[in-house]
């Protein structure tokens, strides 16, 4: 992997991965059909798994572009889910 | 320390089970038994191995509440397994003999304490 690729993937894993986790935590917290304290904790636990999963993805994807795409796409979905789940 | 005897038994059974599973592998069978492993005999080591591990799990269920017991049972694999791993290259035959001696000793201890 070239230094540029490594840098790009590292950013994808760190920033993108964290963002993915945060959005998952938020989306799950407001959309899961259960008491909100339970939704929150499940969201948090999933978020941490997604963060580490994002890192695995970022460094195993075929290219740095794919690394970013594989993290940004679900992030957007989760962001949308969060907005949809927000109380009116 | 009433949980010491069953804990010892759980560890001994885990050790025995792990040793048995290791004997199902060519390299370790050669180390311990001094002769080659026949492919058809692999299951003679695998089945008892898993059975002993299951028994170890069963004993841990008597020591800790369910959730913790499941975790500890797996943890005991580490505590029983690491000495085995480091014994195999140096004292393979002893490692094998312990797989028989330890559970026997543990059962004797447990029954003595239980009957006392």
């Amino acid at each position, binding site marked *: 992997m070239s230094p540029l690729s490594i840098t790009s993937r590292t950013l994808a894993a760190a920033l993108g991965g964290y963002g993915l986790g945060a959005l998952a*935590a938020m989306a799950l917290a*407001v959309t899961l059909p259960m008491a909100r*304290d*339970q939704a929150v904790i499940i969201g948090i*636990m999933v978020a*941490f798994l997604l963060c*580490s999963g994002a890192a695995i993805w970022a460094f195993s994807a075929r290219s740095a572009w794919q690394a970013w795409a594989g993290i940004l796409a679900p992030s957007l979905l989760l962001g949308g889910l969060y907005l949809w789940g927000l109380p009116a | 320390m009433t949980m010491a005897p069953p804990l010892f038994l759980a560890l001994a059974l885990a050790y025995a089970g792990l040793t048995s599973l290791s004997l199902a592998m060519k390299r370790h069978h050669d180390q311990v038994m001094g002769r080659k492993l026949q492919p058809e005999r692999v299951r003679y080591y695998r089945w008892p191995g898993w059975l002993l591990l299951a028994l170890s799990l069963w004993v841990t269920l008597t020591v800790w509440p369910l959730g913790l017991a499941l975790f500890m049972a797996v943890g005991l694999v*580490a505590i029983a397994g690491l000495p085995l791993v480091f014994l195999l*290259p*140096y004292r393979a035959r002893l490692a094998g003999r312990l797989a028989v001696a330890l559970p026997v000793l543990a059962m004797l201890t447990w029954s003595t304490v239980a009957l006392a």
Partner: protein
Amino acid sequence: MNKSFRQSMAWLHTWTGLLLGWLLVAIFITGTSAYFREEITLWMQPEVHDSTLQPGTVELAMAALNAKAPDAKSWDINLPGARQTAVELRWQPAKQPENGGRRRGEQMLMDADSGEVVAPRATRGGNFFYRFHFELYGIDRLWARLLVCLATMFMLIAIISGVITHKKIFKDFFTFRPGKGQRSWLDAHNATAVLALPYHFMITYSGLLLFMTLIMPWGIDAAYENDRRAFFSEVFSRGEDSAQPGSPGQMVAVGPLIEQTETRFGKPVERIQLTNPNRDNAQITLRVNRDPAVTDRQRGGDPTQVFQGNTGELIDTRIPANDPVSPGWRIYNFFTSVHMARFADPLTRWLFFLFGVAGSAMTVTGMLLWVSKRTQQLRRDQQPDRALKMVNGLNMASITGLMLAIAAYFLANRLLPVTLAAREDREIQVFFIVWLVSLVHGLLRPNRHGWIEQVAAASLLWLAIPAVNIFTTASHLFTPLAWQHAAIASFDLVCLILAALGGYTLWRLQRKPLPAKARGARAPRRANTASEQPAGESP
């Protein structure tokens, strides 16, 4: 699973392991010691060693509290147990700070035999290492915790990538090939990592969970509209605030109540809480020791009985199982309780200590493996480059250096004058000075000689601890007092075991260095392809 996936995971594993590996070694070692933090603190306060629970201890405790704080809003008595020898007395003074400042309780230690107040030497005890392992020391708390969290996430990624890249994880489950340099270190790393893998995953993931409000609070804000207080009160509800003190009243004798509770639960009462003592609306809460780690709610977990303090009438009996917890929180509680080995009895605690040792061994062997591999790849007349020397030196500091510093901390506890000002800080300063010296030494001598020197020094210091104990306390290994309480004797025994381990390591290190052939001199071409593996792939 294709080769390049494994290779990229090997790369990731190496980097996430190496970058903060030294911090992870320190976290694991100090964290492992934290399982016994109360016992360590006990050992570091010899003044309280000669104290044993008596039938009359509770009365003595009540008398002491009556003498010291008769008007307090509440009293709290922690009786001696497996982890402490003295009675811990706490109380909430009647007058609280006006402007809503933190409610400051007061406390003192009491000898269980004589009822006298004990003033042990000032020390942070085992709590220094406990706190260090998640917020370090001397650094801004927030940044320290964030750094630890970053290391924890690196660790989690290292675990996952390590499992993916370990090609023969089942076939090599029991494999250990000694005397083969880098291969041996790899086997040791694999063994300690794979055999205790569930523990390593648990300890790492739960470490993140324990810091969730710091590093992943966004779900809380989202669901509670930024009202975090509402979240905390819903989940971590504190006990009900005690009622206002009534008029003066007579307290009933506690002894019979203790008997009642002990009969009810079949366990000794460990803790006695009295709200509004010496008032006519006094309440006495008796708590017994909990069962090992449970998934119940944090504070409601003790089996307790609550009595009216003036009449002795039983008001309430609380049992953990009756407190319902949702599945999500059960999982959280399980992870966090197991991380801290909460409610663990001594034997279970020892097992957790061993798990932690396995984890420490995993991180240590990982760091040593990296150096060993690069060293073996050097050609016969090639010198290690600066990076390799630096990593080797840093390894020394974080492994043998840390063990040296910990031993020095304990020695300082025995050797520093009891009346020394700022004694707590001095002990900690000794720790850091020794650690710093070991770092400098490691960077100056990043070779076999340096390792031998540090291992020898560490063995000496660990051996010195029980020895110095003989001259400075009345509770060393040759006295009956030390053996009365398991924790006290065990401490010295562990010191001896560590010294013995150091001695054995020294003996192995002193033997002739590996022959040049095994160290990487590539005379026959065929040997190359066998030993020159792509980075990280298991042979």
